[in-house]
């Protein structure tokens, strides 16, 4: 599994960073970025799904 953030759609609600700081970081302007290449270790798959399901802007994509 991998996660992606569409930086044009992201408005910096920071829900992903709060839910899964292992997978997402935020820059100085509050925009989300994935950590590393966005690959999700098996034990973090639930957290990745939770982050996706809580992004108000639908900016997170999960690729399986």
């Amino acid at each position, binding site marked *: 599994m991998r996660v992606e953030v569409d930086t044009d759609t992201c*408005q*910096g*609600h*920071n*829900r992903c*960073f*709060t839910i899964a700081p292992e997978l997402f970081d*935020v*820059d*100085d*302007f*509050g925009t989300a970025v994935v950590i590393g290449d966005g690959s999700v270790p098996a034990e973090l798959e639930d957290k990745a799904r*939770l982050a996706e*399901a*809580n*992004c*108000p*802007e*639908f900016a997170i994509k999960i690729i399986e």
Partner: protein
Amino acid sequence: MTDIDDTHTDLYGPVTDWANDFDHAVPEYNERAHEIWAEFQATECPMARSERYSGLWAPFSHEFVHEIAYDTDHFTSQGVVVNTGRPMIEAPAVGPAPPITSDPPFHNIARRLLLPPFAPKVIAEWEPEVRRLCNDLLDRMGDITDGESIVDGATQYAQSIPVNVIARMLGFPTEDEELFRGFVHDVLERINEPVEERMQFMGLLDAYLDEQITDHRNNPRDDLTTYLMNVEIDGNKLSHEHVRGSIVLLLIAGIDTTWSAIGSSLWHLGTHPDDLSRLATDPEVMTFALEEFLRAYAPVTMARLVKEDHDFHGCPMKANDWVLLPFPAANRDPAQFERATEFVIDRQVNRHGAFGLGIHRCLGSNLARLELKVAIEEFVARFPSFTVDGDVTWSVGQIRGPRRLPLRVLATS
């Protein structure tokens, strides 16, 4: 502590036909908001209209609110608080309070200036200060006798938190708390008063801020006001009006809103003992509870102006009509949320729009979340059991929250 006078000139009188003679600024609206939204969401057309304010529309479905918030081609942010007047036709592109009153492309420039001081990691550093402030307020409530003492969760607590935090961030004298509260009240709640009076309120606020900016010019210090005075766009510092407009926005956008969110959350806990005891015994649930407070009791409804005559799903909107963006109603739309009208303290999937949707997403959301979380944590830590006891008064206008919230303390830790 002075009481805020909630009486206002009832320009248009009470509403009997919510669908065709809608008015969000009659006291009944905020008192019965949840019922009114549910009624609209159950009908074919989730859109109210009104000739009040020379033309006003109010959509109540998540779909419509989302669509309008994203559509900056047909709707402008030059006016975001509904009133009887209209902004100047030839208003500068920035609007009076950038970035909230700005449209693309200027919006992004004004917004980027303010993002860094409100970024998550910068705001996180304020946590100990906010915690201390909350405890000070709790201490100041004096001797409490369980089962007997009544404290006001709005005036003795919620109201003072954002005012003090933003004043500290801006580097303004904290003694001016009363003054701020008055300004915010005048600009946000007395919307039904004549335009001339509203201009007068704004004049008083501007004069106060001119004084503060001059003081910062003479004595620069490490705070948000100094940051705004030094920050540059393309090598140019901001004009005095831009600095002042941004401060006006931070005062107005940050105070009433957060105070209302804290107050509504305390109201919920004071009327739902199961949720209160869950929070008191299982503090970990706060991660989810925080977002559920924001969803179920979102305090902020914004507005837009229609740019040109526009057919919106069959609604004949006219240039310069107001359109409300009731994010709080969108947050309770059963088409978007499961168990939409229930408060589910550990709700896992919660794509709420309490902080807006699209390019104007609340710049202060990280600060607001911090204040709300810490305020509730400290209140519940001090008073693990309390109940609403007495008459609750709700605000009037686009920001919804309790203005008087008598709470009987049942247990002190």
